[in-house]
Structure formats: structure tokens, C-alpha cells
């Protein structure tokens, strides 16, 4: 099976979500990539290390802003060149819109929120946790091209160390594709990794007691090289920015280590983080639901434990 993987880039780096999908594609069959927008040709070569034999790059002016509709045109053009049987996307705000637009353009089936892809015989099968991850659903496609959005963080961007041929191309754009325009873009300043990219997340909920207590989590995250996330309750209360919200109405994350501090484990939060590799929970309430789905549960006062953790993490880092 031949795959074409939609690769997004930011600040001259290909993003992990797309690279995870690419590494998976390369493990299942022939993998190609497509990179769009200003600077695409330069970053495209990075995809070789993750298994792409070839990368299509397009730098047309219509793709300068991060808007989905012109990307549907360019992606459709790349797909025609590639002739791939399946198109994979790492799930982001932008890629979800591109995938859905391409699905409508080609009348092609789109499965989303996949945590894995496997080949059964010659057929591609997607694995999709549903209903708050209480059921694992195997999903398929009735024909090609098969479109798939992969859950953020679900697939590791494994390097296989190859190199890719880069083919630049130009696309033609539908009349309606370029009607939306970007007026302004403000970058959020952050010192550490974003919660989608972080391998370690330190998350806080109501049990922190006050917005000021987030500084404890920030210190721990910084000592561990991770990122800080928050529950809906504390974001709603204005304690922490929405960009860090994990859960049903926020982001879905799957870091290697998730340290939940003062989080009860409501279903709304659970669905956003239960794909994490290892979950450590610190909570005063021994009956908090989070103790039912964590790996290590600590009943105790986070205000005592977190600063000690930070200290230990710092000394480990300093010592190693």
C-alpha cells in the first residue's frame, strides 16, 4: 500500500504529529510526504529520516497563510502525482479541516481520532477508541483514497534514517479556496514544548486551590523538560490559558508521562489524556475517580509533594 502523509511545519521544523503518521506509513508500505507553504522545499528533506522516499513541496503564495482550503487544492494535486492509496494526517486544527475538505472534494472516506493503523491482508484498518475510550473500534474504508486523521501524540515519530527526494510543484486553486484571508497572527510565547509535543506533561486541576499554585507545576515541568496542562474547570475559572486545556472540549494528548496534580479525573478530562503512556496522579481525596485509571496513585498533598519532586528532578538533571 502506498501512503501520502500531510506534513505540517512550524519554524523550519516538521511537526511531530505528521512525522508519527509518516513513520507508521513507512512501516506499513511505501511512504511519501507533502509539505505546503513558505519554506516547504527546505524543510521537506527532513521527512527522509522518518521514512519518506519522496516529498512533494509547494510554496505557492496561496499557501502562505495557515488556512485549510487552498491546502485542499494543493494536496489533491500532490495526491494525483503520487497516486497513493491512503492519505494520513497528524490531527491539528489545520489538518482536520484539510482532511475533511479533501474528503468532500474526492468523496473519499475519512476516519479520525485513530490511535493506530494496521494492515489486515491488503486492507488498511484503523484503530479508534470511542465513547470516552471505553470501546476500541476497528474502522475501514470502502475504497480509495483512504483518508485518516491520527490522534495527536498516538504515534511515535521514529527515525529510520533515510533520505527523501524533494519534488517541488505548483497547484491551481478553486475560486472559493482563496476567499478567506488571514488578517493577523499572534504567536503565543512559550518557553517549553507545547502540550501536543511534550513527552512529559504536568497537569493541574481544582485541587491546586489557587491560580498561584500553577507556579509549582511550572517549576516541575521546567525541571522535567515538560509542559503544563490544565483541566476545563480551572481554565473556565480563568486560572490558566485555554491553550493548555486537556479534555473533551480541549486538546487530546498522549505524552509518555502524565502527572495529574489535584485532578479528580472527570470523564471530560479523562478522554483527553488517557492515551498517555504512564499516568501518575496526586490527589488528597483517596476516592477521586482518577485513581481508577492511573498507573501510580499518590494520596497526599500536592503542595508538599510537587516542590519535593521538582527538587529531586533538578538534582537528577544536574547530576546526569
Amino acid at each position: 500500500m502506498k501512503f501520502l502523509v500531510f506534513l505540517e511545519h512550524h519554524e523550519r521544523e516538521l511537526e511531530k504529529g505528521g512525522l508519527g503518521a509518516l513513520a507508521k506509513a513507512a512501516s506499513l508500505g511505501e511512504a511519501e510526504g507533502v509539505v505546503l507553504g513558505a519554506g516547504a522545499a527546505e524543510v521537506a528533506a527532513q521527512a527522509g529520516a522518518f521514512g519518506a522516499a519522496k516529498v512533494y513541496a509547494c510554496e505557492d503564495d496561496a499557501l502562505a497563510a495557515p488556512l485549510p482550503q487552498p491546502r485542499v487544492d494543493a494536496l489533491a494535486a500532490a495526491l494525483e502525482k503520487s497516486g497513493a492509496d491512503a492519505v494520513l494526517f497528524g490531527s491539528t486544527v489545520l489538518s482536520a479541516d484539510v482532511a475533511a475538505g479533501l474528503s468532500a472534494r474526492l468523496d473519499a472516506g475519512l476516519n479520525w481520532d485513530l490511535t493506530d493503523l494496521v494492515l489486515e491482508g491488503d486492507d488498511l484498518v484503523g484503530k479508534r477508541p470511542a465513547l470516552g475510550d471505553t470501546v476500541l473500534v476497528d474502522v475501514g474504508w470502502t475504497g480509495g483514497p483512504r483518508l485518516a486523521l491520527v490522534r495527536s501524540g498516538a504515534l511515535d515519530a521514529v527515525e529510520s534514517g533515510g533520505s527523501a527526494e524533494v519534488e517541488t510543484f505548483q497547484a491551481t486553486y478553486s475560486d472559493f479556496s482563496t476567499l478567506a484571508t488571514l488578517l493577523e497572527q499572534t504567536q503565543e510565547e512559550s518557553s517549553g514544548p507545547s502540550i501536543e509535543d511534550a513527552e512529559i506533561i504536568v497537569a493541574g486541576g481544582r485541587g491546586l486551590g489557587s491560580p498561584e499554585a500553577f507556579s509549582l507545576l511550572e517549576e516541575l515541568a521546567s525541571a522535567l523538560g515538560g509542559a503544563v496542562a490544565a483541566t476545563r474547570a480551572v481554565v473556565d475559572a480563568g486560572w490558566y490559558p485555554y491553550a493548555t486545556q486537556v479534555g473533551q472540549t480541549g486538546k487530546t494528548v498522549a505524552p509518555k508521562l502524565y502527572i495529574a496534580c489535584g485532578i479528580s479525573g472527570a470523564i471530560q478530562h479523562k478522554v483527553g489524556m488517557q492515551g498517555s503512556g504512564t499516568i501518575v496522579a496526586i490527589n488528597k481525596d483517596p476516592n477521586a475517580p482518577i485513581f481508577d485509571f492511573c498507573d501510580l496513585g499518590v494520596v497526599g498533598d500536592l503542595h508538599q509533594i510537587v516542590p519535593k519532586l521538582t527538587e529531586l528532578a533538578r538534582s537528577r538533571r544536574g547530576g546526569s
Partner: protein
Amino acid sequence: MKIAVCVKQVPDATVHKRIDPQTKRLDRSGEGALNPTDLNAVEEAIRIKDAHGGEVVLVCLGPAKAVDSLRKALAMGADRALLVSDDAAAGSDLVATGKALAKALEREAPDLVLFGQASGDGDGAVLWAAVAERLRRPVISQAAELSFADGAVTGKRQTEHGYDTISAPLPAVVAVSDAINEPRYPSLKGIMGAKSKPQETLSAGDLGLDAGDVGEAGSKTTVLELGPPPSRGDTVKIEDDGSAAQKIIDYAVERRLL
């Protein structure tokens, strides 16, 4: 301004959801409710109408009993409802749903099509972009703020990297995030008034769709099998006696997480 709000009925959040092992579809036989994030789209539509005048039309694809859920949105202040209901449309995936919704919207020809953030059952946050493509109109998704001037809509939205402000000429398709507003509760007057508001039900055929366009026949994806999710394994639970921080570090180091 004529505003169409696409809404969906989902199983009530308080009811235990299950997938019917026979049909491999979500069991929708129980109590239904309006998809919670659709309420933000309905609220925004009413606010836009209050500020700019016009009409708010609800457009829904779903079973006949979805009229109960539509009544709640009518009670909030929407003017009328269009339900596309057809047994043949059950089990529609993105391709089939997008086609049917686009047909219904073409018939209404609104200036603005609004969607809520994500549906509470399929978890998919993708339908608006598919509908915009079929209508050949611009799309803005995840909008947390909207404004209107000179025949264009401007939306501000949050992405993984910051904020984008995007403008598009009307007619346009916009999906709002649940950060955009706090949906109102219907007033008693609204609830009483909702009963007499126009509600129209159309079949797929009424919209000029063939049976092969909707439902499983028109779908390009399939559900193959249902299974239990991978187990997390056992939970180790300890009480802090002053050494918990060290134990957490040891646990993480043992598993090569640090």
C-alpha cells in the same frame, strides 16, 4: 442576515452510551439531547440576529424524534427548524452526512452557516470543512470571537501556536468554539412559543438525494469490529508519608521515563 445553524441530536450525556453490536452503530434508542457544543452555535446565531436582524434556521440531519431536541433550540430563540429525516440516512458517515447537509443548506441559501465545535457522540470535529467544500464557500473553524462588517465575517481563533484572525466574505461557513459564549437557558415564554414555531421535515428524496447517496450505501467508511480498549494494567496506590516524591521519581526512572 439569514443564519442556518447545523445542529445534531446525540444520546443524553447522563445516559450510558453503548454501541449496538449488531449494527455497530451508536445506540440512539434512548433519550436524546441537543449536542452540547451546538448550543454555543445557536446562542451565537441569536446574538447575531439581535445585532444585525434576520432569521435563524436550524438544520438537522437525524431521526424523527430529533424534533424534541430542536424544540429546545427554538425555545432559546431560533425562528424555525428543518429536519432531514430518513431511515435510509441512518449510519451516514462524513461523506454521506456532508452531502445531505449541503443539499439542505443549498435549499435555504443562508448568508452564514454556523456549526458547534464537535459532536458529543462521533467526537469528530470535521463536518464544517466538508460542508464548506461542497457549498464552495469559505470556512473559518474554531472561532472564539466573531464580528461582521461590509458583507464579511471576521473570526478570531486559537491554534496550536497562537491566535489567527481570519476574514471571509459572506456567504460563509463558520464553526464556533465553546469559548465563544455562554448559552442561555430558554425562558418560559420561549418554551411556550417554541411549540408554534414552524418545523419542517424532509426526506432525502425531497432534497433530490438518491438512496445511494446517504446512509451506509453512501458512506465511504465502515465499522469492522468492536473490542475492549487496551487495559492499563494495575494501579499502584500509595499514601504520602513524606517519601512519595522519591517514590514517583523511582517509579518513573524504573520505566525509563526520566
